[in-house]
């Protein structure tokens, strides 16, 4: 069993159903055992939450007295006070496991979405992609089209004459980045190739810097 398979059956695991294979994975895998520990903590805190949020009977009495003094309660109700009867409070007890399940489900969803977050951040159009010499991150395709398009539109609105020059420069620096990353991937131990990746991104940053410089047209 791997982590993905284990995380898919997390809900059942918390409902008490676990087999030997799952237990063995949990013992061997620090990531999944950490996740289970976190979710278990959330579940315990959720149970205590209900107790903490329940006001004491004195609070209810004080509210009732204040409301009567203000004349907002004119007729005495059948019950002696606004304090909910014990039986009614027990009826609300079903909320505790429901809240626990909701919190666990939420936790699982957040955990599973975790690794995808940086991708969506990297696709933010306003920012220039940071220099990345890390080969793992360079495997992701360079999402430059939207960014470049926005930049060219901004340049064109200020100075249409130079828009073509910026387009050509962007095309060239993007080719530079592709070559540099391919070269670095071909030989991860080649320090100079890593440096060239930085150089290529620096070139792109320069194009953006010049284009977005508001003090110049």
């Amino acid at each position: 069993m791997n982590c993905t398979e284990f995380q898919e059956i997390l809900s059942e695991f918390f409902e008490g159903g676990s087999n030997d294979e799952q237990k063995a994975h949990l013992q061997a895998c620090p990531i999944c055992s950490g996740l289970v520990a976190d979710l278990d903590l959330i579940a315990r805190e959720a149970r205590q939450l209900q107790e903490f949020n329940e006001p004491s009977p004195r609070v209810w009495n004080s509210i009732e007295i204040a409301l009567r003094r203000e004349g907002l309660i004119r007729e005495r109700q059948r019950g002696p006070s606004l304090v909910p009867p014990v039986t009614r409070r027990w009826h609300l007890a079903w909320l505790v496991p429901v809240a626990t399940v909701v919190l666990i489900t939420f936790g699982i969803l957040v955990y599973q979405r975790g690794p995808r977050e940086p991708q969506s951040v990297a696709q933010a159009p306003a920012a220039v992609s940071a220099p990345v010499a890390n080969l793992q991150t360079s495997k992701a395709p360079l999402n430059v089209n939207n960014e470049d398009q926005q930049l060219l539109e901004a340049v064109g609105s200020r100075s249409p004459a130079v828009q073509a020059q910026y387009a050509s420069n962007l095309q060239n620096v993007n080719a530079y980045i592709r070559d540099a990353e391919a070269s670095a991937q071909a030989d991860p131990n080649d320090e100079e190739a890593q440096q060239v990746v930085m150089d290529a991104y620096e070139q792109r940053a320069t194009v953006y810097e010049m284009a977005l410089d508001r003090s110049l047209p």
Partner: protein
Amino acid sequence: MARAQRAQLVSIVILATAICAAAEVRKEFRFTVRPRAAISITNQYGPISVRPSIGSQVIVVAILHSDKVEIDHDQNGNRVDILSHLLSETTAETGRVDYEVMVPADASVTLRSTTGLLRAEGLHGDVILEGSQANVEVHDISNAHVHVKTLNGLVTLSNIRNGHVEITSVGGNVVLNSVSGPHVQVNSTSGKIRYDGDFGNGGEYYLASHTGDIEASAPSDASIDVTARSVRGKVENDFPLEPKHTPFAVKAGSAFAGTMNKAASSVRLFSFSGKIHLKKR
């Protein structure tokens, strides 16, 4: 009849010259600064030329080519800021300002322009020059940082001694004549790089271009530890180098590495598809 026509022509020329002269306005500003002042000039259209002055005066002479542009100037302590302020509906012609500036030689200077020539000479303070289409010329600078950024302008540096030189040129060619320093770095996407000098005595030189050719000329007594690589282009070497170990596989025709004399300076030349030539002068 011919005399009358000639007289008319001369009158028109005189009138046109007078109109042009009337449209140009000369302004002069003077600032007194302390040692190592910081001078910044931003000029959208038009050249900026900076030379050393005697004493502690910054003298700015600006030729405004129309009334569509103003000069904003400000001095805060030891910092002087000059800005060409474009008014509405300004073009490259009407917004043009030509600057002639004299600064104390130890001042650090920042010049920025889009189209005009940026020129600095005779200084020993830091020089920072930026311009998208502007050509850049830097001469006779010593013991200072020289940082240049340009998109397509030609960059020419000559007689830079003991410099910390960083040039980023996306598409413009870069020419270095007698440039030495502890650190000389040129990075370009498609510009050609030409170096002509002796690589000093104990510096680091890194010249890289994605598609541009790199040509470095040095005397036979240059003291260098050189590495040259072109991924898809050719490399040529005129020097008898002592072989040395490299962290990459040296493929004949696309890379070479070796040392010469005492190998005092490190020289790295890198291109993807440009040709690299280490020439003997």
